[in-house]
């Protein structure tokens, strides 16, 4: 079933996020999804949204989750893997509330808990294929924060994608050990460029630093993930893997109105449309390269290509 008819009573969703709603990355992806769902459903009257951001402290999160649940919100989204224990503790006390948390794959076997995750490696693979086709220096730079979560899986997928085209291409990786240290991330990116990389990619909110570095260099291309980063360097960003939670959210709402409160795991993939490759219109991608990218997408969708995280 698609979006719920406007006749339905107002739905109330609360979301808790570890970073700012405008981080150009993980939190923002969920935030904008909620916005668009709200628009589709007909605004505030149909869907009420409450949020708490910059919340990485577990007691605070637990308090927020319990608070929202007891305030009668229908769906409480704990948008951060660190919230798992809290959801597990609190969900049983509110059997009529839907809890969704991610990214993880564990519903604790509870009827009112959804878990969701994104197969970041898939988009990573596609980006990798495109990058491999575009690099001239045969050196690609990867800048990440800490080698965990979708920062890791995205990059693993990316490396596989590159290798699938040309195993001889060198992929250099740097980890700055911090999710927020933009200056160091910039220095890392510049180092890659000095080492000959003509294409960069990376994950976490601090990659905006790398994008800046690419801009300074002028001729270095960028591949984004989590959110569409084209706006940051309109003529250098080739494509971004975009997390699109809207479908998932709409499905949760529909299921809830149909009486199902949870119990399943959502995984954003290219096949279910949760992951999208957003080509940057501002960059004119050679047709053959785009074709290769689309082929990769196809292959992943129909399972002829398997990318392991």
């Amino acid at each position, binding site marked *: 079933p698609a979006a719920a008819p406007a006749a339905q009573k107002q739905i109330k969703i609360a979301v808790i996020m570890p970073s700012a709603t405008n981080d150009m990355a993980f939190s923002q992806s969920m935030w904008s999804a909620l916005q668009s769902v709200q628009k589709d459903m007909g605004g505030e009257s149909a869907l009420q949204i409450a949020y708490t951001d910059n919340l990485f402290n577990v007691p605070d999160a637990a308090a927020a989750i*319990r608070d929202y649940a007891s305030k009668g919100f229908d769906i409480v989204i704990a948008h951060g893997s660190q919230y798992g*224990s809290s959801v597990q503790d609190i969900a049983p006390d509110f059997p009529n509330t839907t809890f969704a948390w991610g990214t993880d794959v564990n519903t604790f076997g509870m009827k009112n808990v959804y878990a969701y995750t994104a197969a970041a*490696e898939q988009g990573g693979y596609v980006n990798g294929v495109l990058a491999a086709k575009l690099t001239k220096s045969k050196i690609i730079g990867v800048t990440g924060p800490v080698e*965990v979560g979708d920062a890791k899986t995205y990059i693993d997928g990316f490396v596989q994608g590159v290798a699938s085209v040309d195993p001889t291409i060198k992929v250099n990786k740097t980890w700055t050990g911090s999710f927020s240290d933009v200056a160091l991330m910039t220095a890392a990116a510049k180092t890659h460029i000095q080492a000959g990389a003509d294409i960069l990619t990376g994950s976490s909110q601090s990659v905006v630093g790398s994008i800046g570095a690419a801009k300074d260099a002028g001729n270095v291309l960028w591949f984004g993930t989590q959110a569409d980063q084209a706006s940051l360097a309109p003529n250098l960003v080739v494509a971004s893997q975009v997390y699109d939670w809207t479908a998932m959210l709409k499905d949760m709402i529909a299921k809830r109105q149909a009486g199902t409160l949870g119990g399943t795991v959502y995984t954003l993939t290219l096949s279910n449309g949760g992951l999208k490759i957003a080509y940057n219109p501002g960059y004119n991608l050679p047709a053959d390269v785009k074709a290769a990218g689309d082929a990769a997408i196809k292959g992943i969708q129909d399972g002829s290509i398997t990318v392991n*995280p």
Partner: protein
Amino acid sequence: MQIKKAANKPLSLRRPAFDWSNVVLHFLLPLAGVLAALLIGAVMLIILKADPIAAYAAMVNGAVGSVSGITQSLVKATPLLLVGLGICIAFRANVINIGGEGQIILGALAATWFPLTFNTWPGWLLIPSTLIVGFVAGAIWGFVPGILKARLQVNEILSTIMMNSIAQQLMNLLLRGPLMDPSGIAAGTYLAQSARLPVQVWLPRLVPQTLLHAGAILAVVLAVLVYFFLWRTTIGYRIRAVGLNPDASRYSGINVPFYQALSMTLAGGFAGLAGAIEVIGVQHRLLEGVTSGYGFTGIVAALLGSLHPLGLIPASILFGGLLVGAAQMQRAVQVPSSLIDAILGLVVLFVSGSALWSRRWAARRNMGTEEEEKS
């Protein structure tokens, strides 16, 4: 105060009775500081088109208005109190410990590794040993800057700031390596968190459906113990002597470097204990961001409690309540959470600024009494 006593009966050497008016003094003025900060916060709220009355109502209500609010405040007060106790000890030896963050991390790491490794031990054995291991780990992280200061005159502010970053990286390393949750690896999510700790190591909950755990009680007990330690034992006496006058301490046979290092080690231990208690009391697994900045806010709590272990108890509860109420208010009026940080910053600034007035005030009261005796 004492000088007054002198004026009416010079050689009676009984201790002056414990002076409650001073306690009030040391508590009312900080509160005034808090209010001043909240007032400015109100202005910001209005600018953000939020109703300040509603907001602060939500704040108070959130902090003390409900069982969950009160327990929340206590849950947050616990690590503040523990870290603060350590800061307090170090400060008495005139050693400034900015290294709380790193020491908390070390305690948390140890308190995660230990129960996961000895997961067959019964709770009555596993819990205390985990707490001890956490304390020791933090203590080691405090000992290093301590000994560097004592033996090589390496400034502790520098070394502790550096040690914080090192601890952070150490945690990254372990969380993506040996400590990473195997199920996360199996599921291909590779999340930066440890496996869930065995249930028997979880600290018992004091109030059902809340996070309030036995650690809170432990913290208060420790506060009292630290008070006795500092003012009733030879070691505490020496720590304070070293802090006030290292030369005279040396001349009276006190091993100054040793007590400097010791105080820093204890400070680290208490921070480590805070980390351990966060893990086995609240999170039940290790997550990045385990410190939640307690290493810094602990310093604030300690100074709010005028560096007195007992003063720390109300101070950390007040500060914990402030944090909880603020979060509650953010949800109530939907202002960006960063506004809260800004307001808290002002609170800290103003409260620290209020100290002078309490001193001046006390002085003026002495004058007053002097006049009376003259007339």
